[in-house]
């Protein structure tokens, strides 16, 4: 009998906990409100099922507890009831899937006007690259990495010369501009994760992964790594600064381009950079995303 009371109390307690919990989603700072509403729909349907099923459980335990003279009812099955329950479960599933899949459809469809920004992960820091005036990220790959060319740009690719490099610094984004984040890892799996943006995606060495979003709120947000990447995983932090267009342009003008890196390099290190382009012919090379 205490069990029935405790289960009912746990249901009530869980609902109260939900209502008074200080922990809920961070204020959203991107276009992904559709993900939040899919989560809300899922929560309402699941929450309802949780309350109804467990209160039924508590009620059954209470009502049909053993007492002297009480006997169970013999009823092997009830096909009509089982069909009804299956039907309503199916309705609930469709109710959750519809907004979930609709949001996913948007998630995998990158808008035409999205700006490109690349995030490069390594144990345990973030770097970034912008395509520059040509709007194209030059080819890059780990085989091109030298002490001066830390992001591994292909020095022979003309599209890479105007690329803007931010090594281990802050990432800046203009507010309300859709952005396609292309992701690259030098070493192991990482995951680009800004809780306020909702979106996230793994960085996988050897391939380029992507997701897109539109930052909608100006401010500073913390970048975390959400895929276990070794002992420094919890310290792999970065910062993204979302600001208005003018501030973004001014910031970008201050950053160094790959062309400038090449120009400033000593002849010996420039030679080393170009040497990587020769040896890597025939091996996998990251193309322009």
């Amino acid at each position, binding site marked *: 009998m205490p069990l029935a009371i405790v*289960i009912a109390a746990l249901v009530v307690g*869980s609902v109260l*906990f939900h209502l008074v919990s*200080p*922990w*809920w*989603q961070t204020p959203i700072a991107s276009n992904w409100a559709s*993900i939040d509403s899919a*989560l809300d729909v*899922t*929560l309402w349907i*699941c929450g309802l*099922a*949780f309350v109804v099923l467990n209160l*039924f*459980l508590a009620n*059954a*335990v209470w009502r*049909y507890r*053993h007492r002297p003279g009480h006997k*169970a*009812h*013999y009823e*092997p*099955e*009830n096909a009509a009831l*089982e069909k009804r*329950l299956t039907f309503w*479960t199916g309705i609930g*599933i469709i109710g*959750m*899937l519809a907004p*979930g*899949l609709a949001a996913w459809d948007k*998630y995998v469809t990158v808008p035409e006007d999205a700006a490109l920004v690349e995030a490069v992960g*390594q*144990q345990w820091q973030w770097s970034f690259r912008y395509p520059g005036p040509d709007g194209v990220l030059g080819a890059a790959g780990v*085989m091109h*990495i030298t002490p001066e060319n830390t992001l591994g740009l292909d020095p022979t690719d003309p599209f890479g010369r105007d690329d803007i490099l931010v090594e281990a610094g802050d990432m800046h984004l203009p507010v309300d501009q859709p952005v396609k984040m292309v992701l690259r890892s*030098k*070493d*192991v799996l990482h*995951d680009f*994760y800004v809780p306020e943006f*909702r*979106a996230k995606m*793994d960085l*996988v060495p*050897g*391939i380029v992964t992507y997701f897109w979003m539109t930052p909608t709120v100006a401010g500073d947000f913390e970048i*975390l790594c*959400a*895929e276990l990447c*070794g*002992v*420094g*995983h*919890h*310290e792999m*932090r970065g910062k993204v600064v979302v600001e208005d267009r003018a501030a973004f342009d001014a910031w970008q003008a201050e950053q160094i381009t790959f062309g400038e890196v090449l120009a400033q390099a000593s002849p010996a290190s420039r030679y080393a950079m170009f040497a990587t382009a020769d040896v890597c012919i025939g091996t996998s090379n990251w193309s322009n995303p």
Partner: protein
Amino acid sequence: MATTLADDLRPLHHPKTWIGKYVWSQDHKVIAVQYGVTAVGIGLVALVLSVLMRLQLGFPGSVPWIQPENYLQLVSMHGMIMVVYLLTALLLGGFGNYLIPLMVGARDMVFPYVNMLSYWVYLLSVIVLVAGFFVPGGATGAGWTLYPPQAITEGTPGYSWGIVSMLVSLAIFIIAFTMGGLNYVTTVLQARCKGMTLMRMPLSVWGIFTASIMGLLAFPALFVAAIMMLLDHLAGTSFFMPTLFSFGQTTDTVGGNPILFQHLFWFFGHPEVYIVALPAFGIVSDLISVHARRNIFGYRMMVWAIVIIGGLSFLVWAHHMYVSGMNPYFGFFFAISTLVIAIPTAIKVYNWLLTLWRGDIHLRVPMLFAIAFIFTFIHGGLTGLFLGNVSVDVPLSDTYFVVGHFHMVMGVSPVLVIFGAIYHWYPKMTGRMWNKTLGQMHFWFTFLGTYAIYMPMHYIGILGVPRRYFALGETAFIPDSVAIANAGITIAAIVVFLAQGLFFINMIWSLFRGPKADPNPWGAASLEWQTPDTPPVHGNWGPKLPTVYRWAYDYSVPRPERDFIPQNEPPA
């Protein structure tokens, strides 16, 4: 009645020495206990690891030797031990071995010698696993998912030797499981007694049977993944290894694909969830039916649900990989298949509830655990719909929501069933009864304590706190209240940890001092309670095998004065 070949006891090779009887035993019941004790033993190691982990999270720095690398080792070893070496081994090697021959009316497994080998090879896998703690560099800290490249590259604890111990141990475990699994499947198919049709088998057998088939199909994917990673690590192949720039060095691996490993791992890993869940589903169905004195509601539907869940679970693996970088269009398929699997699962829940409805519920200790399982499984099952629903998974993946979800659904829920099952069958296994008060105390601490641990984790996860973090540090979006929650969770974890002492005291004390148990104390109809001896002796059934005349759920049938009819009782 005439005797048949199966009645002949001579081929059983009764052991003549103590060692033959209890060590190199071919008796399924002794092997079951060997499996069970070994699994619980290594499970206790995993339990201690989890408490150490919680101490670091709840009270950072309270255990000075836990550094980030040690924390990751605790996480990884805890996860792998719990999933594979405790839950799989205990539910299939332990309960599968004990229950299948007794429940289907067989004298033993059909391959007793292979069955014995299965246990000893399993023990070897556990020894190799534990050896990982003592190799140079310590155990692997790659997470229980062992994702390459980091599992075998610098920067991850145990990347040189710990991972070798883990992969070799898994390969050995899979060999052991294959020997056991073939036995369970063949015994169910070939050694049922007269009258025991498939649709008269108790659901425990159905769950274990289906899970064994699934294991035989799923574990090979893990086996090849382990071998391929060993080759990448030791022989310089590049199955999972592209060219990396790691710690100032360009590796000479070329063209491998880390996501390939994830596909292989989860092709095993997701069915693995159900390899653990289906035996638990089956066992809990029997517990609920016996103690509610009511036939399991919708038996045929329950059987089909088990089979359908088993089949569908091979089509949902990539829901663990929505943000892995695989082709994002896969998300549509895997979200749909994942949520479809919720339908047969929900049917099982409804039928458990409808079994209780209009029952005569005896709230004995095994039943307390069974009912608590329904609660925790509803909770864990529903949160799985969040994570399966592709776009909703994006913000939640790799947060504490995931930790809370899978601990509710495949940690707490099967463990509650395991405890319920141990209390339920203990009188048959030992011939003695446990102490009721200790059992009830153990239940309340475990049930309420685990809910206090995992319930808040979901909310911390929705906030966005990532998992597998040694320390949260100064993070703008994480308020101080999360540290308070973490401390509270740790305290609850310690209470639950200590409460398990009540269980072990009860079991061990009762083994020697418990009152003598009735051969069928719960009035159960299934065959294992109708043995001529309690505990059953080698060969199980005396000179004649039983004959079955009815299903396992004839409880409270209108006519008889008794409220159950044993399966082997002839029709009046």
